[in-house]
């Protein structure tokens, strides 16, 4: 007979799906924004490779471009991340770049533009 003491409850597994980050944008920007986000997402693997190989020049260039374009497209957080990424790359701060890449990946995978 199995004692109650041995009947440990199954661990509770709660899987949460983080909500999308909705950004409201003017309707006429719809064709450009899709391409913009697609390009930024496509740059992520190369950024990871650049961090692994210590290519801070590439990371800095991407950060600089992101800083200039993010807010213009309606994504001010991307401009902030781009500025910080550019600074971290100039300082060759691998830990900071890693943290920022994680934040950038998180944002780009969850942001959902909504056109009005």
């Amino acid at each position: 007979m199995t004692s109650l003491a041995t009947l440990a409850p199954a661990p509770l597994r709660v899987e949460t799906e983080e909500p999308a980050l909705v950004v409201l944008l003017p309707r006429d920007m719809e064709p450009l924004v899709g391409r913009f986000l697609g390009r930024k997402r496509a740059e992520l693997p190369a950024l990871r490779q650049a961090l692994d190989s210590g290519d801070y020049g590439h990371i800095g260039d991407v950060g600089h471009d992101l800083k200039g374009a993010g807010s213009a497209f309606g994504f001010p957080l991307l401009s902030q991340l781009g500025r910080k990424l550019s600074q971290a790359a100039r300082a060759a701060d691998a830990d900071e770049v890693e943290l920022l890449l994680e934040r950038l990946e998180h944002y780009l995978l969850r942001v959902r533009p909504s056109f009005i």
Partner: protein
Amino acid sequence: MGTEKTVLVAEDNEDIRELVCLQLRDMGLRVLSACNGREAMEQALQARPDLVLMDMNMPVMTGFDAVRALRAGGYGAPIVGLTAYQEGPEGELALACGCNRVLHKPIRARDLREGVGAVLGTGKETAT
């Protein structure tokens, strides 16, 4: 008689170039584009647009050199410099090279409309 004005957008960042061109077309302007300073200089001297929006940091030829070359080549219409640096000498240098004014990136649509409207609206701004 058509009064549509022409703007040349010189910007190596594809994202920004696409966006600015769209915003200018929405303003009823005819738009040309270039992706480096040399291309910008050649197009501007050939097409003589009513305004040039010049990114100051571009490959092949910088915006600074392109602006100097345009002024030396007799291009007298307004040139608005685009710079990524809010602080520092880049803006001052752009004006010294021959830009009429400077816009800082990231460029908000409102700032673009106001900046372009200011230089095209009066038609009085010329090379200094």
